[in-house]
């Protein structure tokens, strides 16, 4: 656990608590979690199902509002931003790779990436061509395939290409290998490593797999919404 929260941190949360429901049905997903991320950081959130890993990712990305505590982006509390500003921040600087890829089902691989470029404004800022990004993840031959026509690994690679299209400062990956066999999973992780080295974004991977966590520089272990251990390699 760390209590440090430098003002220059790319992203940080302090005393972050997230609870769902009320009364007897109240569930505390996160309890007093604090962390800080610098540009280029490689952080693993390790824990079993229900430990709060995904909620940390969502809180960092502004998809979940904290019940208490703060989440800040480049030193500015996300709570102080209105919904549109949070969306702009998310679109321009934070990208997701979800566990199930979450590709848009009615768009081809090319269009999935193009839509992300359009949505984040990257296309207007002179972003890379969707075909080029898909080429980077080895899917140059599958540009016009619909998500239903892709394997799990291919879908995950499209999701990575989509995330890269946003030119993020922070890439949040939620169990990126959760639905993949070990070989495919390893190849996806290699790809993420290579791309991080090339693009220099900060990387946070939520995983229950210690081997995956072991590939990253720092690990926060979560259990029942609380940070139980922090390890830096």
């Amino acid at each position: 656990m760390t209590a440090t929260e430098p003002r220059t941190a790319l992203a940080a949360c302090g005393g972050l608590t997230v609870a769902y429901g009320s009364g007897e049905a109240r569930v505390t997903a996160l309890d007093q979690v604090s962390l800080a991320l610098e540009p280029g950081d490689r952080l693993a959130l390790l824990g079993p199902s229900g430990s709060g890993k995904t909620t940390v990712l969502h809180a960092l990305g502004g998809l979940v509002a904290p019940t208490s505590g703060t989440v800040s982006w480049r030193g500015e509390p996300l709570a102080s931003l209105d919904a549109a500003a949070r969306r702009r921040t998310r679109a321009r600087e934070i990208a997701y790779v979800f566990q199930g890829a979450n590709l848009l089902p009615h768009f081809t691989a090319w269009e999935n990436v193009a839509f992300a470029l359009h949505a984040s404004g990257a296309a207007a800022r002179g972003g890379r061509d969707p075909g080029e990004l898909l080429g980077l993840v080895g899917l140059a031959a599958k540009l016009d395939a619909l998500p239903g026509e892709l394997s799990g690994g291919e879908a995950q690679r499209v999701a990575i290409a989509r995330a890269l299209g946003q030119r993020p400062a922070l890439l949040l990956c939620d169990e990126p290998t959760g639905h993949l066999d070990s070989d495919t999973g390893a190849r996806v992780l290699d790809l993420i490593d290579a791309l991080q080295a090339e693009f220099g974004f900060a990387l946070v991977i939520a995983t229950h797999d210690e081997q995956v966590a072991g590939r990253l520089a720092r690990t926060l272990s979560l259990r029942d919404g609380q940070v139980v251990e922090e390890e830096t390699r």
Partner: protein
Amino acid sequence: MSLAARFALAGMVRAPGRTLVRVLVLAASVALLGGMLLFVGNSLRTVSGTAVRAVPLDLQGPVGSLAQATRVAGGIARQAGVLEAVPTATAALSSAEHNGPSGATRAGAGAVLAVPPGDGRHIRTFRFLRGSLKPGGVVLDQQMAATLQARVGDRVTLRVRPGARAVRLPVTGVALVSAADTLFQPLNPALGPAPAQPPANVAIMPLQTFARTLAPTARSLTPASVRSNAQPGAQDGVQWQVQAQLDPVPLSAGSPTAAFNAATRTKNRLERSVPGQVQFVDNLSDKLNTAAGDALYAETLYIMLAVPGALIALGLAYLAALGTVERDRRDLALLRARGSTRRHLLGLAGIESALLGLAAGLLGAGVALAAVELLVKGGAHLTAGRAAVTIAVCVLVAVAGAAAARLGASASVLRGRVADGRREGQRAGRPLWQRLYVDVACLAVSGLVYWLTARTGFSAVVNPDSNPTLSLSVYMFFAPALLWIGATLLLVRARGGALAWIARRAAGRRASTPAGFLLASAGRRGAAINRGLVVVGLLLAFGVNLGIFSATYDQQATVDAQLTLGADVTASAAPGVVAKRDLTARVAAVPGVTAATGVDHAYAYIGPDLQDTFGIDPATFPRATTLRDSYFLGATAQQAMARLRARPDGIIVSKETITDYSLKLGDLLRLRVLDRSTGHFRVVPFHVAGSVQEFPSAPKDSFMVANETHLGRVSHSGGPNVVFARTSGDPATVARRVAAATAGAGTQVQNITQQRQVTASAITTVDLTGISRIEEAFALVLAAAAMGLFVALGIAERRRELATMAALGAPLRDVGAFLWSEAALVLGTALVLAAGLGWLLSEMLVAMLQHVFDPPPDALAIPWGFLAALGGAAILATLIATALAARGLRRLPLGAILREQ
């Protein structure tokens, strides 16, 4: 409570909004059915009541003598269910003569009706216009009085057969005999009713006067001799008979079939009460038998109008149930993982459907009762039994509808394995009906039946006697029924393929712009868009069909009634009064009257035929009533009136006259016109100015139309005797004002609203207004609900996709565009589909009514107001739904949605 029941209840309580939508949609569909059920029940009772009340004389039993008639009538009158039974007699009249101040006037052959004093309380075969029936006197039918130029107080001479002793009697009244065809028909119980050509001259006498004066001069017919008089008009003696009228109240309580059975049973009981003394000719059962056929037609018509709407409304329930599929998929995967079997899952769906159906059924029944009470004139006429049946049917239909929608929507989930819980189900192969091309076959057969209907007119059979009755084949309803089925199946088969193809072409190979993304998405969601299109398009088509058909039906019923009556409002007066009191101007000045014209309804002989002759003012007549081009042959209405105006002695004659006398335009035609100043017929030359087959207030057989000024000059009639008026407001209200304005002139005022109640066919007396209002209201609500549901379903089905877009940073405006653009696409296509399909269905239904209405409709009536409201409701609902959807998007719990697996 079992686990499944608890789970079902918990699922419904956990998502109250979704449960409420499903209940409301189901309730709306069963309310439509329930409303129809109540309305049809009421209408059938209306048909029975109309048919029973339309029979002026229920039973006629021929007997051999006055004494027997008196004895049998006494016995019959004491029986339950009999309002009146009286001894009467009819006899042929060979001639009549009146010696007035200007000399002797003769009338040709006719008939005598002899009734006891006080007759007519319930038997409505004639009504007095002036005077009354007095012992030792005679009452003349108005036409006979006009022919003889006889007034109350004059004396007339009657003779029952040539050479028989003449009887001279004082005229004590003038009457209008309204059921001469029934009164003077040959009475043969074995053959049943055979309404005869009504005699031109009818005299009514007190029974005892008749027995004392005329009867001894003619032979008596006995029941055994009636066979010799089976030919209408061949009666040549005295027919003693018993006339009876039954109590209409119990007969009007059920359907025409029930009324027919009850009337037949009553007749049999009456005959048994005086064994061997009388057998009745049953006019009532004859009428009810026809009404039963008409009722079957009406029922089929209602079904054709309402059932498609109710079935499509159940399609809405299916759409609503689709909103739960994602939840079902997760719940069922969870249950299966915990060991539940398919049977348990089906049980769960069944319990949920029963709970939903119960709530929706009760609500729907309430709405149906309220709708009928509020929207149908006269209300629901509810009894405890009818209410119970309505509620039971609504609940049963709602439970069945909920189960069908639930199982249909979740079929893929229920069929799948545990591992499939996370995947969308896909149908393997095409269903049997698609492989057999049932849709194409339905459309082909529908077209064939319609073509046969339009070409051969086999839709209606008109009995070729003097009182046409209509008999319609229910088979002709195959055309619209198969069109509904075929069009629906074809739409389902298409799966939005055409729309998707167009969208994909418009989007290009790879979408990269906002519009391109929308089109690409729509192009790949053809099946989902089609689902909305099927329900919304068919619902709107239902509304369009209903609106057009109802408007056309209403228009034709009005045209039919106007043709029979003559105008929206008519005021009849004694000869000379209209001109003397300037009634035409007085009627024209009444608020609500937009135009008025005077008409001289007279009679003239062409050869030996006495024909109704109408003297009109060709300049004002078309303004005061409706003249359709189809009334005239070889000319438009405007041309016919222009010809008449151009030639003062012009006369327009009927098609039969043109044929019978080999006439052509401009030919000289010599008519014998009654000169009212002398009481003699005089020959007056006219010139043929045209040919006519229908004319306001004219009879269905031959008649003539001439210039009123010329006709009045040659007949010295003193001017018009009827005023026709067109109204801009409610005809009944305006008629009351006209009656008040002309009260002092002794006018008899009639209006088109009351006329519609007494038109010849029971079919046109069925007021479609009630069911139209109910269905139009439901069509508006359901069309709006369908669009709202489509948008809501879009959010429910695509929430994960939309949440992903939002998580990627897409502005909510862009995300919302994926919903409203599809809604706009569905709405636009549905409106086009509805216009085409609705119009085609209306054409088919109206084509079947070609023979019901007189005259047949020239074109469909388009209810622009209702159609605008229908489209407006769908557009408004779409706008509201998309606005709510945009609000809902802002509140999407992105984190929670993106965690869902």
